[in-house]
């Protein structure tokens, strides 16, 4: 029997992630990870104007702007979660699961990875955007931010956030969000479809750790980490079943090993899920704590729970 590509929450699948060779991206060469991660957020459509009942725009902005920022070593406000992505790399042989020293690793940026946000509210977004409409909005965002070459887009992602009641079909019953990529005259564009997460209630994480807005950062963080390590699915880091860094650790209850927890960073406290680390223990695992450099990574949360 052959397992299908897909995902299931906390599935217990433990095969390591392996590199799938990357994708050819014009002048940017072969791209398999975001080596210097950057993220742009687009609040798409006039439906956002004066109508954000859960305060998702500000919450998402705060969460993403605090990622990777590290002040004093060991400080409680450091982001010791997203650096789990920094063990993965590109430019290595397909099938490899451990990046040799000297590889082109994902690096922790010295400043916030949030490079910009855009309220594209001049007209209404489609009431239920299709995948192609979301992809086109990501291309529009690349143009808006002046990222008109493959090189400029090789290490960034675009989060297309849709407004309350304005989500693509299947949201809340099948999925909470997804990421993908599209080709364009600006090179390959990595983007995420991020619906108005709180519209789905507990199905997409409301109160999963303790706050009604938990799902926003859990889901956005899941997609963010996956877009960093597999920006052009599925040419980056996946396991044999197609699971990515977030899929393997999704929806593990708080308090369990690798469970979701509250991450305190310089911009606030946000619920996140753990991320898969090939380098944890002898077989890998879902880690809650992975400081820059990876020394002392842990499956037991040090923040929250």
């Amino acid at each position, binding site marked *: *029997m*052959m*397992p*299908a*590509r*897909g*995902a*299931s*929450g*906390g*599935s*217990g*699948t433990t095969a390591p992630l392996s590199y799938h060779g990357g994708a050819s991206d014009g002048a940017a060469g072969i791209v398999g990870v975001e080596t210097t991660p950057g993220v742009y957020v687009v609040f798409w459509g006039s439906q956002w104007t004066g109508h954000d009942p859960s305060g998702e725009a500000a919450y998402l902005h705060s969460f993403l702007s605090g990622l990777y920022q590290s002040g004093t070593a060991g400080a409680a406000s450091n982001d010791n979660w997203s650096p789990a992505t920094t063990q993965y790399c590109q430019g290595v042989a397909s099938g490899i699961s451990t990046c040799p020293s000297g590889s082109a690793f994902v690096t922790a940026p010295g400043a916030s990875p949030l490079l910009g946000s855009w309220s594209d509210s001049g007209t209404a977004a489609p009431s239920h955007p299709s*995948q192609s409409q979301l992809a086109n909005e990501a291309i529009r965002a690349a143009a808006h931010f002046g990222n008109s070459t493959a090189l400029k887009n090789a290490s960034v992602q675009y989060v297309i956030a849709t407004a309350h009641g304005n989500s693509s079909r299947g949201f*809340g*019953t*099948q*999925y*909470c*969000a*997804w*990421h*993908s990529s599209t080709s364009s005259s600006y090179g390959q564009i990595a983007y995420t*479809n991020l619906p108005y997460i709180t519209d*789905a209630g*507990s*199905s*997409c*994480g409301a109160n*999963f750790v303790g706050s009604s807005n938990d799902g926003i950062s859990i*889901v956005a963080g*899941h*997609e963010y980490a*996956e877009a960093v390590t*597999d920006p052009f*699915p*599925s040419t980056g880091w996946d396991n044999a*079943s*197609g699971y*990515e860094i*977030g*899929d393997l650790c*999704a*929806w593990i*209850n708080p308090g*369990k*090993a690798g469970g979701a927890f509250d991450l305190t960073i310089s911009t606030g406290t946000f619920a996140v899920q753990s991320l898969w680390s090939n380098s944890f223990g002898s077989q890998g695992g879902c880690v809650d704590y992975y400081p820059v450099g990876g020394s002392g990574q842990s499956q037991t949360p040090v923040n929250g729970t």
Partner: protein
Amino acid sequence: LATGKELTVFLKAPSLEGPPWGPIEVSDAAVLAPGDIGGIMTLVRGVTGAVFSARGPGTARLSATRSTCGPTSGGGPSTTPACLQSWSAVVIVTARSG
């Protein structure tokens, strides 16, 4: 299902707190091949999903299991037969239409 078409499957556990369905497996990948889910999803809590491409005429069985018992002492789901709920579906793939 005509050759060349895609089939997306979502299995939902009875409750958000219960164990989800395990990976959806296919008996014959030459008939129904695991495909790209078209954007990698954060699935809704309790949902397992997969997408398949109809590759050639024939019959393939999709199947999955979930544990209905509590976790074992080791923390993993119990896999004793009495604890396993099974799901399966037979998919008939026909020649490409037209």
